[in-house]
């Protein structure tokens, strides 16, 4: 597969297939994520976004196909790869019965972060939640909790970051702040980010390239503008609806 993007490929899926009881949640999915790129995974519920991300994190084993990160097969180098990666999801929490700083200290130690205290303080400042450090995590609002999760996700200066609907259930103000922080950190550190969302504004603002999934297969790929033009629609949201309502579209 020739790759027009000269940047290093940090995550690659080849012919990734995942079946559940005979139903294909992923059907020969192939994709590449480059260093410094934000790749959006879009699709309706059940399109295969979360399954793809779970496979890439090693949480779910694929039925067939290959996964590699930093040029190494995931199944053989999982721990080494996870040391250079991180993950945040709207649906996964840090322990609600610990204080924010306690949770972050634990994960800083797991990732072997040097000068963890300073690192945590810097990230809390960056995400404008320094005042929450001593609060119990379970008592935070959705927006605060999301930003604490992002703090955890940035702790080890990941080269590869997977964000699963990071702005789900956030109000527009906080969602905007989260998008800006993700963009800023990505630009400063050249992280490769795999980003899933149902929020088209997220995708248009944050992602360099988008992959549309439908029934586990890629039905469109390109920049948000390219995809809108290709489908002759007015917006990415219209494309989303068109794809979600059509079972036969294939690029």
């Amino acid at each position: 597969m020739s790759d027009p993007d000269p940047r290093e490929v940090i995550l690659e899926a080849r012919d990734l297939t995942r079946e559940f009881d005979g139903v294909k949640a992923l059907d020969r999915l192939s994709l590449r994520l480059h260093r410094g790129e934000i790749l959006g995974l879009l699709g309706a519920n059940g399109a295969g976004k979360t399954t793809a991300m779970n496979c890439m994190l090693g949480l779910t084993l694929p039925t067939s196909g290959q996964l590699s990160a930093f040029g190494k097969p995931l199944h053989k180098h999982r721990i080494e790869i996870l040391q250079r990666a991180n993950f945040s999801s709207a649906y996964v929490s840090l322990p609600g019965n610990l204080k924010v700083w306690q949770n972050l200290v634990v994960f800083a130690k797991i990732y072997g972060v040097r000068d963890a205290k300073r690192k945590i303080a810097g990230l809390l400042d960056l995400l404008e939640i320094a005042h929450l450090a001593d609060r119990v995590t379970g008592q935070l609002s959705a927006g605060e909790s999301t930003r604490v999760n992002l703090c955890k996700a940035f702790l080890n200066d990941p080269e590869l970051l997977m964000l699963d609907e990071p702005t789900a259930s956030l109000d527009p103000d906080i969602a905007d702040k989260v998008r800006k922080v993700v963009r800023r950190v990505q630009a400063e550190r050249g992280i490769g980010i795999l980003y899933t969302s149902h929020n088209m504004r997220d995708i248009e603002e944050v992602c360099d390239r988008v992959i549309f999934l439908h029934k586990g297969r890629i039905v469109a790929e390109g920049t948000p503008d390219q995809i809108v033009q290709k489908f002759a629609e007015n917006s990415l949201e219209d494309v989303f609806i068109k794809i979600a309502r059509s079972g036969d579209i294939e690029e």
Partner: protein
Amino acid sequence: MNLRVIWALVLRYIFLYTRNPIRLVEMVFWPLVDLLVWGNLTLFLQRNTSQEFGGFILFLLGAMILWDILFRAQQGVAISFLEDVWTRNLLNVFVAPVRTTEYLAATFMVGVLRICVTGVVLGLVSWLAYQFNLFTLEWWLVPFFLNLMLFGWSLGMISTALILRWGQAAESLAWAVPFFIQPVVAVFYPVADMPAWSQPLAWSFPATYVFEGMRDVMQTGTMATGLLVKAVLLNLVYLVAAGALFFQILRLTRKRGLLTKFATQ
């Protein structure tokens, strides 16, 4: 295995238990209730039975304390895992660079900490309230403690594997599994007084050798070391089997894609 990762995971539980003193209730309150019930029963029997039997029944207190060592070791593994499930933190751990062996090692260490807290409290209270000194077991206490801890870890891995297999609906197994075997490991009565059909079953568990040994030591001051060797060998078999079961079920859970559902439900 990375000790830093294990320490980080243990630190999480230290934060949890020191932040919320209510958590100490399960480690101190329930064992104390058991101790007081068994202690008072022991006093009653001592005062109302023959002197010979009265001296002998002190083993009830020893058995109760040693049983708690096994139970706390098992709880260290099973409850630590459930804490991650209850707080929806399991995925954060599984997508971090944490090997399954490191995760298990951390839960083993949590078990040791729980044993220390419970053991010190029970040891002190039994000595102050009932003049029962656990150290009358002298050096035998060390192999007894280690064997029960190892068996507790095995039961912890089995409980966790079963919960992984059947989901959160089966979480009561975290408390129930040790009690499935309690009637047949001769905690409070000798194997010889158990029904004949259950005696071979009793000898298939390493804990049985410890409780039999404890009674021997309290009566005669010594025990057959061959029994301890058998307990160690059985413990190794149980650890390998329980570890294999845990890894196999975790692999199946990943293969079936159930880990994420289980961790976010």
